[in-house]
């Protein structure tokens, strides 16, 4: 009997807190999702909503001055939040590749970048000989569209442009053919041509190795190009999960609608009127729906009753009790309040 495949990673009610001067402040609040082999799951959301914090958790890692305060992150069945540090070390880099938001932090400033990639390959026993490691490294650099891979390999990080550093880090994360690749804003520093090249490379590698990917980006347009499914985060909570096509065809949550509307407006973007009014203020979150202060459709009840994901269609979940009342295709920019 064949059931659905086991997920590569299964995040269950993840809670992360940060120490903010005198007390613990919650940043990621009960987030759950899973990724199947060969699948790419995207995560979109506003600056500071908790995307990187979630991405780090997929490696069983939390930043200084923060703690896991509940939940589990099961990678192929093993809970990374409860694994000894030595075991985790073995998994990171080999089985789970990571591209952090700031590529420079992933590079050792005092070593030529080619050495770093080869060293990582050798450390994880991915290549039998130095020669093989070098070939794979140079091959990856070429795939990334880096000019003259040999020259780039001999350079120190500071001798590379921002986008070149970013591509070196991507190459390093891909080098061991990880089972899961965690990407935190991996193409923000890249021009569209280079970005398109990287995105199609990722798609090819995913098809060839059945690699699963978690792709964080504030840019829904980029996620639309690479993801099978997309999660939208707001103030540390998931507020919508859907397949990419469904999310664009039929966005349920008012915040998602605002995001999509501003994306469609981008071509004629004048940058004066954001379609999403206001900003995320963590110090002023209501007890109920966290989006309520900014929501065009909010009603008094929204401020007091917390919202959580509920299934609204096939694989489509929305955290808004009013979603059936919000007519499809309503432009969140006009005051559509009933």
């Amino acid at each position: 009997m064949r059931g659905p495949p086991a997920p590569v990673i299964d995040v269950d009610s993840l809670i992360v807190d940060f120490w903010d001067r005198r007390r613990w402040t919650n940043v990621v609040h009960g987030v759950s999702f899973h990724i199947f082999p060969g699948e790419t799951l995207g995560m979109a959301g506003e600056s500071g909503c908790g995307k990187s914090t979630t991405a780090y958790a997929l490696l069983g890692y939390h930043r200084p001055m923060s703690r896991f305060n509940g939940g589990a992150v099961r990678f192929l069945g093993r809970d990374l939040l409860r694994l000894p540090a030595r075991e985790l070390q073995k998994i990171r880099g080999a089985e789970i590749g990571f591209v952090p938001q700031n590529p420079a932090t992933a590079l050792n400033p005092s070593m030529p970048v080619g050495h770093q990639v080869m060293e990582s390959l050798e450390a994880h026993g991915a290549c039998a000989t130095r020669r093989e490691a070098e070939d794979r490294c140079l091959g990856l650099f070429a795939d990334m569209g880096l000019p003259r891979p040999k020259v780039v390999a001999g350079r120190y990080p500071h001798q590379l442009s921002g986008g070149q550093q970013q591509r070196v880090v991507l190459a390093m994360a891909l080098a061991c053919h990880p089972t899961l690749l965690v990407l935190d804003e991996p193409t923000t520093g890249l021009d569209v041509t280079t970005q398109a090249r990287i995105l199609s490379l990722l798609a090819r590698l995913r098809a060839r190795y059945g690699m699963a990917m978690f792709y964080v980006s504030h840019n829904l347009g980029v996620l639309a190009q690479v993801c099978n499914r997309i999660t939208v985060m707001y103030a540390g909570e998931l507020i919508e999960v859907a397949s990419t096509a469904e999310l664009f065809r039929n966005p349920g949550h008012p915040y998602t609608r605002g995001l999509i509307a501003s994306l469609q407006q981008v071509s004629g973007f004048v940058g004066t009127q954001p379609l999403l009014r206001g900003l995320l203020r963590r110090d002023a979150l209501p007890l109920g729906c966290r989006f309520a202060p900014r929501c065009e459709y909010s009603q008094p009840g929204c401020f007091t009753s917390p919202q959580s994901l509920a299934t609204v269609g096939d694989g489509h979940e929305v955290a808004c009790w009013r979603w059936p009342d919000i007519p499809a295709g309503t432009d969140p920019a006009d005051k559509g309040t009933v």
Partner: protein
Amino acid sequence: MPRGYPERPQTGESDQLPAKPAVRGVSFSISPGETLALVGESGSGKSTIVRAIAGLLAPTRGRLVFDGQDITLPVERRTKELRRQIQLILQNPDASLNPRHRLWRIIGRPIEFFFRTSGREQQRGVAELLETVQLDAGYMWRMPSDLSGGERQRVAIARALAARPKLLLCDEILSALDVSVQAGILNLLRALQAGHGLSFLFISHDLAVVRSLAHRVAVLYQGELCEVGGVREVFSPPFHPYTEVLFRAQPVPAPGEDLPTDVPSGSELEGEEAVPACPFAPRCPRKVGSICDRVPPPWSTVSATHAIRCHIPGGELAKLQAI
């Protein structure tokens, strides 16, 4: 022109590439209250140019002029006033934020250094700056490591603004920010320009942002300028053949659409010596012939404010690109 920055830095800082400086023969100027956007693919030399203007690296050849004054000097030899007037926001903010200091120190330092303000008043200044970049004043007690990527980018913006510069060099300052925050920062920059006549040299990969903010646009390809013009002019035909490729590669913000397949490969430059006279020749879909490899293309003026550097004259290009 009261303030201009004509320059032609020839930075030969690339040690392994003695044959080819990262930036060659680039000249442009920016007027007070003007925004010049610099666009071009990864590795084309954009950051090198702003770092040269900021005095962080010395041009091999060429001159920088600011307010009629030669400023081709490393930053240590520039006057305090000049350092205040030209502020750079780096592409990677992490490198420029001292990890051991809280934000009130990081942002407060330029206030103290340039305006001799301290104590309460300085703290008020920091709080105001944080608010202008849409961060809560309470953030001043945090360390850079307690911030998200986009929050750090905004702190770097706040710190540069603390010096009340005349020329702000912005290297990809919006790339880590989502649309809502981006719109806020863009409005802030516009307001500063309108209120204080600030000039911007603005580097961005996001052409929608460039279009909405810039007055003029300069297109860089492998260290050489290939098109300069008013924003409307650069965004409509005739295009330089590279500009044309660049604009066509804009991602389609819709799901299900295929990625562009005929993406021309990145900044490939195979032979070390065989740098063609037109750097775009190896990838140019409109290449005329061997003349492009042998003879440096001339600048042709399309209008008083719009110039394209190509062997195909502007009028010809317009006809080719009309369809």
